[in-house]
């Protein structure tokens, strides 16, 4: 114990920045696992609460985000456990869609999802990588980029909300995109 105290932890918790820094990252992580936006939001919120409550258990060996992701992972598992504990709901359900014209066997056996399964994993990693890069951007750039690209808001709305003019907005978007390209460069741009 004494030894642990002597070593200055490499990472420290700062709950005030949690929501701004990690909420979107955790949200994406949760969505890819529970596939439900409302539920994912609740899980993220619970994660923050649990993080606050057990902040004293944080040893500082992992980064803040890794620690929060670990909590979220538990929350996701708890969610599935709770859901499956309700009797009768744990059985495997299959949906047969009778819309296709081909034979039933071909449609069911040649799983159209099998190819996209790996894509799903890759997309999740990609999404998390992008969010990690977004969180490194200056606040204003991140805000504008998120509103424009992810929420798909119109230029006019964003300008009104942030009280900036369109040319300001496009410069912010351009800077954000440039930084993102640099950030994603090593892993995702095979050019």
């Amino acid at each position: 114990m004494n030894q642990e105290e002597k070593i200055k932890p490499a990472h420290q918790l700062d709950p005030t920045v949690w929501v701004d820094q990690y909420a979107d990252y955790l949200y994406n992580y949760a969505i890819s696992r529970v596939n439900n936006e409302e539920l994912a939001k609740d899980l993220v919120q619970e994660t923050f609460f649990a993080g606050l409550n057990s902040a004293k258990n944080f040893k500082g060996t992992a980064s803040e985000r890794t620690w929060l992701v670990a909590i979220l992972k538990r929350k996701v598992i708890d969610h599935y456990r709770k859901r499956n504990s309700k009797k009768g709901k744990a059985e495997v359900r299959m949906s047969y869609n009778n819309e296709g014209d081909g034979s039933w066997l071909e449609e069911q056996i040649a799983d159209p999802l099998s190819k996209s399964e790996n894509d799903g994993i890759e997309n999740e990693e990609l999404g998390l990588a992008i969010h990690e890069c977004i969180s490194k951007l200056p606040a204003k750039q991140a805000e504008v980029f998120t509103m424009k690209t992810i929420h798909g808001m119109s230029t006019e709305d964003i300008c009104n909300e942030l009280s900036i003019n369109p040319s300001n907005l496009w410069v912010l978007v351009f800077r954000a995109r440039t930084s993102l390209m640099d950030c994603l460069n090593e892993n995702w741009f095979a050019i």
Partner: protein
Amino acid sequence: MITCEESKTICSKNQYKEASWSERLSMWFHVLMCKTCFKFSRKNTKLTGLCNEASLHALTDNEKSQIKKKLGQDT
């Protein structure tokens, strides 16, 4: 003739299909001559592709401030 900075801004604008045709035209002329901007616009298009591929989600500012409020971090 537009500057590189302008051409890159128009290129970013074009990723959201909001550049006017005259802007696009001047950008294309620039890109034809400027190798750096050519590379930039290729990367920029790729970034758009990646963002679409990843099907990104994000909480809105409203939702975030709600969470903050619940955490007792009033701002």
